[in-house]
C-alpha cells in the first residue's frame, strides 16, 4: 500500500518492522518480511522521481586526494535508491575476503562466506543473474574469474507494484528519518519529517536502517548526538573504517598471441589472485580488468619497447606487421585496507531540514599502491613465462607519481562506517547486523562490511538483506511466542 501521508496513519499503529531506505538492501528486507507475513513500513526520503532538491540533501564536503565523485552524484535519494543508476556488475565475495588477510589490517568478518551462501541463489534470482561459472587457473598465482551482469535491476521497478498492492508492506515516500527516540536500550520511535514538513513518530518492534553506505553513518551519528549517546552506546567505530574500491588504469599489455581467455559481454577479462598468493605476497584482494586497447596503442607500445629492448622490439614489430600482436588496456580495482581515519563525520553545514550534512574523509596510502603493483607483476610474470606478452606500467604504479586524479578513482562503492564485529570497540553492529547495545535497531547495506574484497558490493548487499530478514522473522516469531498480544498493533505511541 502506498501511504500518502504518515499523518493519515492511526496514532496507535505499530508495525512489526520499520525499514528506512528503499534501495537494494531496504527493498529486499521489506519484500522478504512482507512475504513472511509481517507488517512493514518502508520509509523512503525521496520521491518516485529524481529531483535536484532531493539530491541536494546528499551534498557534503570531501577531504582526500584524488577526489571521489561528489556524494550528491554517486548516490540517489529516490525510491529504489542507488539502484536507479548502478551498473549491474555482480560477484560474490571470496571465502578469504571474510578472513584477516594480513596481520595488522583488521578486515575479518564475524561471519564466513558459508553464512551467506544459503542466500546466494535467491539474491541471484532477484538481481536476474545467471549462475557463475567456475574459476579457471592462470598459472600458479592468478585465476580467471567471471562477473555476472544484472540488467541492471531497478528495485523501485522490481518491487514498486508489489508494495503498492501489498496489505503488509506500506511504502511512504517523501519521509525523511531525522532521529530516533530511545528508551531502555531500545528504539521506541523513528522521528520522520513528512513531505508536508510535519514531524511524525513511527512506532515499530524492529527498526532497520538501510539508507546507504554514507547515510547510515550520518543518521546514526546525528541520532547519537541528539540522544546523548543512547542510540549507539558503543560509538568507537561509528563512521569509521569507510572504504571504496580504488579503480585505476595500471598500464598496457603488448600481446604477441591470442589472450588465453575470451572477453565477456562487457569486453572484459577479469583476473584475481589465489588465496595462497594473497597470503604469500601480503597483499589484499584485487580484480585485474583486461580490455581491448584503442587503435594505435600497439604501435605506440612497440615504439616504446624498442627504446628499452631493441631486439625484442624488432621481433615484436615483425609479428605486428603480420597482425599477430595487439595492445590491451590493463585496469584494476582492489581492496582498500579498512582504516579508522577514513570516515564519515557530521558537517557544521546543515541540509534544508536542519540536519548536519555528511563530510567524507578518504585517503589512499602506500598499501593501495602495493596491491595493484604486485597484481601487475604477477600478470607480467605469467605472460613472460608463456612468452606471449609484456606489460608497461603507468608511472603512478611504479611510485613515480601520485594516484591520478583524472582516472575513475572509485567505483561508487560506499562501504564501512557501521562495520560488523563482535567487538563493539571495532564495530557498530554484531553478526546479526544489530547495533551493539540496542535491542531492536539493525543496519542493512554495505556500511556493515568490515572489509571489501574486490567484488562489486550489490550481490553481497542483497544476500545480507535476505539473511537479515530471515533473522528478523525468527526473532519476531520468538517475540510472538513470548508476548503473544504484542503481535497485534495495539501499542500506543508516546
Amino acid at each position, binding site marked *: 500500500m502506498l501511504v500518502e501521508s504518515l499523518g493519515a496513519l492511526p496514532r496507535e499503529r505499530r508495525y512489526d518492522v520499520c525499514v528506512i531506505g528503499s534501495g537494494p538492501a531496504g527493498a529486499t528486507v521489506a519484500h522478504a518480511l512482507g512475504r513472511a507475513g509481517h507488517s512493514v513500513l518502508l520509509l523512503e526520503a525521496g520521491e518516485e522521481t529524481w529531483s535536484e532538491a532531493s539530491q541536494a540533501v546528499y551534498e557534503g564536503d570531501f577531504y582526500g586526494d584524488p577526489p571521489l565523485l561528489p556524494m550528491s552524484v554517486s548516490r540517489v535519494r529516490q525510491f529504489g535508491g542507488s539502484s536507479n543508476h548502478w551498473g549491474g556488475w555482480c560477484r560474490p565475495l571470496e571465502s578469504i575476503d571474510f578472513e584477516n588477510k594480513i596481520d595488522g589490517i583488521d578486515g575479518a568478518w564475524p561471519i564466513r562466506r558459508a553464512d551467506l551462501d544459503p542466500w546466494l541463489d535467491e539474491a541471484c534470482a532477484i538481481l536476474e543473474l545467471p549462475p557463475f561459472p567456475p574459476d579457471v587457473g592462470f598459472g600458479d598465482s592468478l585465476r580467471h574469474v567471471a562477473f555476472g551482469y544484472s540488467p541492471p535491476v531497478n528495485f523501485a521497478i522490481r518491487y514498486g507494484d508489489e508494495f503498492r498492492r501489498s496489505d503488509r508492506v506500506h511504502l511512504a515516500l517523501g519521509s525523511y528519518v531525522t532521529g530516533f527516540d530511545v528508551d531502555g536500550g531500545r528504539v521506541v520511535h523513528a522521528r520522520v519529517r513528512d513531505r508536508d514538513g510535519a514531524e511524525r513518530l513511527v512506532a515499530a518492534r524492529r527498526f532497520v536502517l538501510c539508507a546507504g553506505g554514507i547515510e547510515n553513518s550520518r543518521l546514526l551519528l546525528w541520532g547519537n548526538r541528539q540522544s546523548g549517546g543512547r542510540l549507539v552506546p558503543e560509538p568507537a567505530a561509528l563512521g569509521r573504517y569507510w572504504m571504496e574500491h580504488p579503480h585505476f588504469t595500471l598500464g598496457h599489455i603488448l600481446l604477441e598471441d591470442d589472450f588465453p581467455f575470451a572477453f565477456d559481454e562487457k569486453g572484459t577479462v577479469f583476473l584475481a589472485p589465489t588465496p595462497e598468493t594473497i597470503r604469500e605476497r601480503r597483499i589484499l584482494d584485487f580484480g585485474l580488468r583486461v580490455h581491448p586497447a584503442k587503435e594505435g596503442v600497439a604501435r605506440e607500445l612497440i615504439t616504446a619497447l624498442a627504446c628499452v629492448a631493441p631486439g625484442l622490439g624488432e621481433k615484436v614489430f615483425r609479428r605486428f606487421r603480420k597482425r599477430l600482436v595487439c595492445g590491451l588496456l590493463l585496469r584494476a580495482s582492489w581492496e582498500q585496507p579498512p582504516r*579508522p581515519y577514513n570516515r564519515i563525520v557530521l558537517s557544521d553545514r546543515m541540509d534544508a531540514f536542519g540536519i548536519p550534512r555528511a563530510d567524507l574523509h578518504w585517503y589512499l596510502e602506500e598499501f593501495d599502491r602495493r596491491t595493484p603493483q604486485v597484481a601487475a607483476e604477477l600478470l*607480467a610474470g605469467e605472460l613472460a613465462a608463456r612468452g606471449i606478452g*609484456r606489460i608497461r606500467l603507468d608511472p603512478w604504479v611504479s611510485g613515480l607519481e*601520485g594516484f591520478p586524479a583524472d582516472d575513475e578513482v572509485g567505483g561508487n562503492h560506499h562501504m564501512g562506517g557501521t562495520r560488523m564485529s563482535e567487538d563493539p570497540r571495532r564495530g557498530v553492529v554484531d553478526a546479526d547486523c544489530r547495533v551493539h547495545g540496542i535491542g531492536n535497531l539493525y543496519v542493512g547495506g554495505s556500511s556493515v562490511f568490515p572489509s571489501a574484497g574486490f567484488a562489486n558490493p550489490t550481490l553481497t548487499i542483497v544476500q545480507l538483506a535476505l539473511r537479515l530478514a530471515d533473522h528478523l522473522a525468527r526473532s519476531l516469531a520468538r517475540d510472538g511466542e513470548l508476548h503473544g498480544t504484542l503481535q497485534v498493533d495495539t501499542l500506543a505511541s508516546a
Partner: protein
Amino acid sequence: MTDREVPLDEVRADRRRLLGAIALAASPAMLPAAARAAGEGANPVPAAHPVPSGGALRYRDGWLLAPGDH
C-alpha cells in the same frame, strides 16, 4: 570511548593539521602506523621509488621485462 568530532575549522584550514586532529580523536590503539604514514601526504609519492621488484622480471622505464629481453 566517545566519538569526538574533528573541529571543522581545522579541517578547512589545513589538511595536514586535519590528519593530526583525526589522530588525536582516535584511540592510539585504533590508529595503525599506516595512518601516521598517510598523514605525510593525502596522495603520497614515496620518497624512494618502490619500482616493482618484478620477481624474475626486470623493471625498466615502466616495462616489466623478462631476463632474456634485450
